């Protein structure tokens, strides 16, 4: 069993806007290409050109429908490690390989200590753990620990790859432990939610729910229909007196 750091301090994480995500998978693939050469490299792909291609991905996008008929919503849901404040994936680790960093709250795996027992993946209710069958160790989202502090990158690029690449700007990164941070303010303004908080792991990442649809009369301030213009008594007479200069 592995200890958690004392609470408090920074809580780095992601805020994902489900109202804006178009489900394009840019985040998933850019994550894959960054991380397959990054801190937890490689993210192997088994049978990559065959019938059972399956690889390690730290970020996956699921698309599903909620509701019925025309009112159903198509939701694109990117899923990755939520860097919980009290994650069981860390607590169950028998070797101390899974750990949560005190300084920023990022949950990482020390591959040198990992024995590949997979207890952590059983413990994680979010399915965020990715087992590397090739190396026999567990891997997971590092929140791009090798980007966010990387002095070889320009300051503006020191964000996770998924955030930097998101074409629709649906992904945001910051300190959710600081109520004045841009991400915390965004969460407050948009009613951001934690995923399955009832389980008690206190996820750090937040999802911004889809906004209500606007498809009813008056939704933009416009009337339900345009009134008939005074016709002047004939089909075209309404335009006969227009004095318009070219």
């Amino acid at each position: 069993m592995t200890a958690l750091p004392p609470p408090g301090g920074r809580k780095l994480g992601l805020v994902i806007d489900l109202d804006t995500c178009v489900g394009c998978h840019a985040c998933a693939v850019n994550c894959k290409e960054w991380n397959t050469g990054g801190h937890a490299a490689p993210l192997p792909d088994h049978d990559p050109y065959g019938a059972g291609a399956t690889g390690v991905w730290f970020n996956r996008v699921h698309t599903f429908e909620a509701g019925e008929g025309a009112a159903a919503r198509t939701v694109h849901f990117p899923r990755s490690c939520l860097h919980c404040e009290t994650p069981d994936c860390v607590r169950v680790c028998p070797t101390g390989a899974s750990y949560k960093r005190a300084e920023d709250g990022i949950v990482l795996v020390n591959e040198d200590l990992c024995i590949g027992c997979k207890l952590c993946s059983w413990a994680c209710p979010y399915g965020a753990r990715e087992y590397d069958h090739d190396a026999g160790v567990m891997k997971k989202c590092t929140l791009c620990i090798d980007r966010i502090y990387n002095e070889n990158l320009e300051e503006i690029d020191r964000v996770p790859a998924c955030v930097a690449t998101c074409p629709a700007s649906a992904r945001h990164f910051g300190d959710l432990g600081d109520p004045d941070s841009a991400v915390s303010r965004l969460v407050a303004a948009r009613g951001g939610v934690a995923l399955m908080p009832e389980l008690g792991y206190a996820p750090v990442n937040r999802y911004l729910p889809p906004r209500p649809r606007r498809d009813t009369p008056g939704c933009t301030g416009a009337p339900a229909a345009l009134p008939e213009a005074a016709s002047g008594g004939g089909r075209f007479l309404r335009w006969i007196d227009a004095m318009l200069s070219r």
Partner: protein
Amino acid sequence: MSSIIGEFLSPAPEKVDTSPAIGDTVKTTTCYMCACRCGIKVHLSDGTIRYIEGNRDHPVNRGVLCAKGSAGIMQHYSPARLSKPLLRTGERGAGTFKEIAWDEALRIATDWLGAIRATDPRRLAFFTGRDQSQALTGWWASQFGTPNYAAHGGFCSVNMAAGGLYTIGGSFWEFGEPDWDHTKYFLMFGVAEDHDSNPIKIGLGKLKGRGAKFVSVNPVKTGYSAIADEWIGIRPGTDGMLVFALIHELLRANRIDLDYLVRYTNAPWLVVQAPGTADDGLFARDRNGAPLLWDKTVNAEASALLPHVTPALVGEFILEDGRKAVPVFQLLAARYLDDAFSPEAAAATTGVPAATIRRIAAELAHAAFDDEIVLPIAWTDWAGRRHDRMVGRPVAMHAMRGISAHSNGFHTCRAIHILQMLLGAVDVPGGFRYKPPFPKPIPPAQKPAGRADQIGAGKVMAGPPLGFPTGPEDLLVDDDGTPRRIDKAYSWEAPIAAHGIMHMVITNAWKGDPYPIDTLFMYMANMSWNSSMNTTGVMHMLTDKNADGGYKIPHIIYSDAFYSEMVPYADLILPDTTYLERWDCISLLDRPICDADGPADAIRQPVVKPDRDVRPFQDVLIDLGARLGLPGLVVADGSPRFPGGYADYLVNHERMPGIGMLAGWRGNGDEHGTGPRNPNQLARYIDNGCFWRQHLPDEARYYKHANRTYLDYAVKMGFIGKADQIVLQLYSEPMQTFRLAAKGFGPKQPPARHRARIETFFDPLPIWYMPFEEAAIDTASLPMHAITQRPMAMYHSWGSQNAWLRQIHGANRLYVNRARAAMLGIADDDWVWVTSHHGRIKVQVRLMEGVNADTVWTWNAIGKRAGAWNLAGDAPEATRGFLLNHVISELLPAREDGYRYANSDPVTGQAAWYDLRVRIEKVAEAEAGETSPRFAAAAPPPTLPARPAILRYGERFRRARKSGDGR
């Protein structure tokens, strides 16, 4: 070292390297994973690609990168890459080849092509698929002397391009974009997760951030439609009726921008009303050819090109020569005020409730007129009048293949632009904006070449193969009306086929209709698979023989970087490089990458050296041209004019004096747009991130069609010939010109067979008609529409063998509306037969809510032929993936006289992919489990590498970091 506190381990902190070097080198270039052409930064480590990211400075993607672009590494290192020229040794289609040296390959190609050029250059059909170098390839076709050239636009989006260019002198996507920063109401039609990729996503992100309303009109609610504030799940092919009903409502309420119409469109131009005469329906013109309007201040006709006149918009007027005429606006109002276009009428056709149509019309008017935008930017109009501000109508529209890929798409596209014009929303703040070099004169002045007097044995063709006809005299037909091009583009069957008709080339060449060809030369065109209709039939045509044992299409040369399905069907393979191994250019002469605030072009530079015996296709084409002695490609002594290949051509070729492939850093590096050649030009591009962009001054950013500053600038840059106002065309006179020919006027008239068709479909104001296939089949037995989309992670991305992308989309399903499926007794995961008038396929179903109940759809081009792309024979792409193409015929059902027209738009020849009608029936239990049809794998090329069992991409970078090499 760990310690134990209570029962918990508290491990010693891991030493995490938070500042690793990414690579040792960064090179910029341009992505080619789709047609977006984003700027990328490629990080290399010891010559291997470590990471590809978006270039923040680049005008197209501003730093972001999509799934495809991020998977470029896998494309580049694909085991499906070809490695050496191949010559067919067995039967065509079997895939048996021998490897040959480049010299031999080029000698064979030169022999075949040289013989054609010396006798009848038209016997070369040169079609270049998803080519991004059409400024070179089209020019090369002219140098060779064949009119039989086009790229893939004819089966992609020519209705969008032509519909726009004949109406507003620009179009959606490459020629224009919504004003993402200001629009408050965005109406998107039929964007099948396609064109364009990152700019739309960036733009939608901006709209969401500002709270603008986004309405998506699309039978399918995926992708962009999923995040729309309102989804309108329209019946496919009926969008035109929806647009007409919106126009009807705006006219009825007189909620239109009359000032805009009078100043910027041909609304006041007078149209001659003289039924039964040769000038009926043409514009009344003065003796200088200027169109006329009726000036109310003097109650007389006046040139419509003068400022300060006060034109009548309605009324009937007697011209000085005694003819009657009415303004365009009156014809337009008369047509669309008719009850045939009421919301109720449109509701019956489209399935969109009349109340919804009324509400959308009211919302459009509200956004445009009650919520107008004023930018405090002074500007000068075409007539020299100074305005102290820019008034905008914050309503923007965008449309793509869902409109384009129907046989009524040209008219529907025109209708959308007319709706934008009535709202005063073309190139104004908040509206649709042109991307320079657009707007162009309507239509652009370039005419297609290929008439008998323009070509001849051993001669350069006197003009470009593609252009914009304005009347029958511009058609490429013989005196008896026979098409002169192999694809019948610019014939009476498709007079405005501005992008050619690639989907008919193989059928026509196989039939020898209108004539047989000798060599089919193609590039990046998977015609024996997902790029053809009637795929099974095309495979047969490519392998069919004459009685003498020779192939009906005698020679096929193909260039591709990968082992695609088309490779086994060619005789000679010229292996191309990947996009990271080549020089290339994204030219203003081709399909530009500009945005509304300024022109831009770009290059690709070789980022890595090929590790195979492959050559960039463009280098090969230039080499072949020199070997053939094509005048533009050799110097006086017959030696190559561009010995440095495409890079040499990019810098030193001039289309006209001072105008070359690249607009940036000409002359001494301080001239842009036009200027002398600059031998250091490519270095300047590389220094600037491989692109060039110029910002328009504020006063030139809007009203480009009538903005003195912009028009003068456009002339200086070589975008347009004259700085005249470009008057937007509600009423299209070229259409009427063709119609008059069908009515028996003029020296060039359609053969009897085509007369009624031309008269019907060349209406100068947009019309809606039932898509041709639907009108020709029994809708009771084929009750469903069937359409495709391209998933965002694969849109326009050839090569689904990509190891990462195929994990996202490795097989496709047929998506069926859940409630409709229940009525049909079909459950999720069931296998069904999909039957059209042409054939049937067997596929697996996935039920969903967000699809029009009369419509089924699937992802296109996920299905792959077994063995192709170096995928395992049992890969899901082959066993569970499928193509809808097998049930789409390239020909319409026969007419009464037996004639079968192409499955195309009658105006442009655009492939009508989305007109497909089908029925679906559950298969017998024994038949479930595998898609049909399936095809045996062809023999793989001789040196295709083994597929890895496991891919550990990136392992070496970590190893290098550990050993310290990577730092």
